[in-house]
């Protein structure tokens, strides 16, 4: 019951985040090495999309609230159109 701290969680949970965004936000994982970054990180953009949908703080980071939402049981249908 106690409220979660507002500080961002720096724990590494890439697997959960990636699989969640792949399943429900059409995240395409590109494992090809790149010479330089082209614009905004795709994963961060998808995180922002998810955070906006759920009314969370939109920061593109897997903070505690975002991770908590990702761990809730849910419908398997993506939140965005495919």
């Amino acid at each position, binding site marked *: 019951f106690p409220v979660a701290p507002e500080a961002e969680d720096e724990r590494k949970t890439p697997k959960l985040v990636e699989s969640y965004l792949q399943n429900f936000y059409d995240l395409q994982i590109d494992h090809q090495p790149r010479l330089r970054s082209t614009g905004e990180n795709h994963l961060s953009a998808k995180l922002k999309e998810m955070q906006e949908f*759920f009314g969370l703080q939109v920061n593109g980071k897997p903070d505690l609230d975002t991770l908590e939402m990702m761990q809730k049981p*849910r419908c398997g249908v993506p939140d965005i159109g495919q």
Partner: protein
Amino acid sequence: YALTPGNPKWKRNNLTYRILNYTPEMRRADVDEAIQKALRVWSNVTPLTFQKVEDGEADIMMSFVYGDHRDYSPFDGPGGMLAHAFQPGEGIGGDVHFDEDETWTKDGTGTNLFIVAAHELGHSLGLSHSNDPGALMYPTYSYTDPKEFLLPQDDIDGIQAIYGQSDAAVQPTGPVTPQPCDPSLTFDAITTLRGETIFFKGRYMLRKHPSRAETELNFISLFWPKLPSGIQAAYENVERDEVLFFKEDKYWVLRGYDIAPGYPKPIYRLGFPKTVKRVNAAYSDETTGKTYFFTADRYWRYDENKRSMDHGYPKKIVSHFGKIGRVDAAFQKDGYVYFFHGTTQFQFDPRAKRIVGQMKSISWFNC
């Protein structure tokens, strides 16, 4: 609400469904009942009808399946994804798959089949996920007692945008998710809880922590599955670290953060006569150990130390609390008592025995 991209819909209003197999965790009759009730959620508010078939191809085929079940959307074992459904269309269109790795139940002890089926059928009919946290079509699962379930207005608006209204003379309406900054917001009950303030509205609680700017909206059932929705009064006894919740002629005790065993109990155990059917509001004065209960235009005083009602009550609320006639909700904080009636809030000073302020009911939410 959101419609499925491309706005797919069934061309006929009379649809068929078939349950291909049954989960072994529930009685077949309970599965049938859960599915029928889930279908009624949608047929009650639209011209749609659903007929069960036992053989052949139905518009909506429902099945309980494990893991990879050959539709390119594998399930993931217990938890996580619970079910999925396909948008209206031929073949797999409209079909609903339930993850057999979940513990399906007819109540709240596992994953409630009715709630999940009702959500998935929304997809089968052409609805996408809603970002209204109170909507049935919100993507995450939260338990609501099926007996208390009412289709939220957001979902009614969504499905009627596709299929139109039902043929019923009186159109059903549904609950709206409370918005903390809605100036028309009223409250069922309010209490403090270990420094926080909890506002109850329908099946929701708005949680205001003194050190956090934003207000958290949750289902009551998320924290206290045994509590019903529509709590009518609540108060904190700081001395005993307890909160009492009231609905109709019953009350529950929260010790720490958990509902104490043995509840609900009848309010008559507190000393109310049988003529009192419900409590509208309550607060406890921690300095005097007296708890005030408000019912209609009267109030009762309870002695927390003697654990009995004081003599000479009930009295008229206006006789002690100034112009306050009726109370929806009340709580005490920092020496003042806050009374809520509709969208108005009165700040009462119990030492001076007079009203010292009048605000909008939503003044606590930093709007």
